[in-house]
């Protein structure tokens, strides 16, 4: 990673409501550039072209779930090492551990606060690059 400033986030989430609120939280509040994908399949189509610095994905989705999507994205050469964060309403410790094993550097709990989500991500990003 040549540049440490987080700018481009690939956001994978099937719920339109959450997409909309996260868009405000990430773009307007956080100042990020966000590409929203409604499914794992869509992320696979659009992911490489967008060249994200971070993958932010929902866990439970119809079709490919979050871990399966991440696994598939990791097969793409340019996304093989892109850091990922899962967002989920499941927050029990063993599930968080499972998600980390699936390749996520962090798990952010839903519901999230749209005013602080961006900061939360920036914190994780900074720790990761520290």
């Amino acid at each position: 990673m040549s540049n440490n400033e987080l700018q481009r986030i690939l956001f994978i989430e099937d719920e339109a409501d959450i997409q909309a609120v996260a868009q405000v939280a990430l773009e307007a509040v956080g100042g990020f550039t966000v590409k929203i994908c409604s499914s794992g399949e869509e992320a696979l189509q659009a992911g490489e072209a967008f060249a994200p610095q971070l993958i932010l994905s929902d866990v439970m989705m119809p079709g490919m779930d979050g871990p399966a999507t991440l696994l598939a994205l990791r097969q793409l050469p340019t996304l093989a090492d892109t850091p990922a964060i899962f967002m989920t309403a499941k927050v029990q410790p063993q599930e968080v551990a499972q998600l980390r094993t699936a390749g996520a550097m962090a798990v952010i709990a839903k519901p999230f606060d749209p005013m602080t989500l961006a900061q939360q991500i920036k914190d994780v990003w900074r720790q990761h690059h520290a």
Partner: protein
Amino acid sequence: MPDEHDIQARLKALRETYAKQLPDKLIDIARQWAAMQRQPWDFAQAKSLHRQVHTLAGSAPTFGFDTVGQQARHAENLLKAWNNEQRTPGEDEIAGLTGYIHSLCNSLDSNPIPPSAPSPVDVVSTCPPERRLIFLIDNDEALIGGLPQLLSHFDYQVRVFRNAGGIDEAFAKERPAALIVNPGLDDTQQGGTALVHGLKARYGQDLPVIFVSTRGDFNSRLQAVRSGGDTYFVKPIDIAPLVDHLDRVTQSHTSEAYRVLVVEDDPDLAAHYALTLRQAGMDTTILTRLEDILTTLAEVRPELILMDVYMPRCSGLELAQLIRQQDDWLSIPIVFLSSEADMEKQFNAMRIGGDDFLTKPIDDRHLVASVSIRAERARTLNILMVKDSLTGLLKHTKIKEKLAADASRASRAGEPLVFGMLDIDHFKRINDRYGHLCGDRVIKSLARLLQQRLRQSDGIGRYGGEEFAVVLPGCSLAAGEQVLNQIRAGFAKLRFRHGDEEFSVTLSAGIASVEQFRDAEGINRAADEALYTAKRSGRNRVKLCQAPAATFPENG
């Protein structure tokens, strides 16, 4: 970067949109759960329900619905355990989940959200239906004895007042959706009109009032007009036009959101347009892959397309031509967006099939106004084109299109869907005996009953003369049977009048589900066969297609 105030405004708008959709989501969950309990435990359905409550647990608190989120979390934990262990829950556990889902629905009451339209959930779940309250002010025992019962079939709840006493107290408790008043109350021929005059002064001129009288003379009618009556019926009352009128005056003004398809290669711009339109209450879909245009059109059924002119793979003008080559989409408004300020090129775009040309960067209010005005006009025209003129239901080809679109969506998402065909029994005899006008009234009554009992997302069509078709997305075969049986029973209870003669009519129905057949044609044929079976086995009944569930490949 937008300022804090702007962000808060956007979040508030998102919250409001979410709040509007939440009742339907909850009802859907309650309905699915009710349907699941009526049949052997189905892991696929349990999985789908799990996903929905999980989503709710995550999203509701984000939008300020903490109680909903908590109850959803409880429900999720139960479903998760059952699904993970691949086991059928016991009676106590089922009761536990029913409790959480019940609280889910009830938790809405504590949040200030407008109630949603009546839906089939009222017959299969714990959520009470929304019944519109009517005050009937009359001392005519014959009317008082029959009308409340009749109107209840159309989801109206009637409170009877034999005179003016107690009405103000009743108003203080709950404002009715409309009044039905005898102008000749107290035998003065004016007691009722005077009462209405006072009530309107106290509770607002917009209170709908229907006068019912034995007198049909000019002076009585004029009196009624002057006191603010919306309409005037002469006894004996024919229920169909009365309900027709009640429906109209008590109709809530919330109409379905405009469906807009955004075709724009720049994802940021696409998201921005989508958000702007969504904040204005529209339903937006972003087309990400141009190749998917035809399938997306079929699924989303947009009422307007907002399209960028310059896109890398093919130009907006080419895409517009491609869309216009399809008969179905000949008339859809296409609004072009471009930074092109050259008039010649704009005219060219419009000749090819663009209805408007907006120049980027476009002001948000301008975008919303352009899109909503065109969508509104298109919808009005569309209603004339796709709706049956007698019943206001979808025409034959349109209900088949809805079935095809909804069935493909449902089978891909692994969600249930039921298709039903209904036919009025011995309709020819009614026409022969009472005439076509009377037959039309029977058809309209059934149409209205269907509209009252089904949800907005359900499709209702007039299939042929006395034949109807319904598409019920998210509904299992068992729940569909129950819904149609309720409609069948409600229809059989309606009394029609011709001259001095009263009669009632029955219907037969056949239903099939997407779980039995993969494609719309198969479902259609099976429902038709089930209808035939219902007819052959004595009419006035609902028959299910007996085919086994087809096996679907697991999603993804």
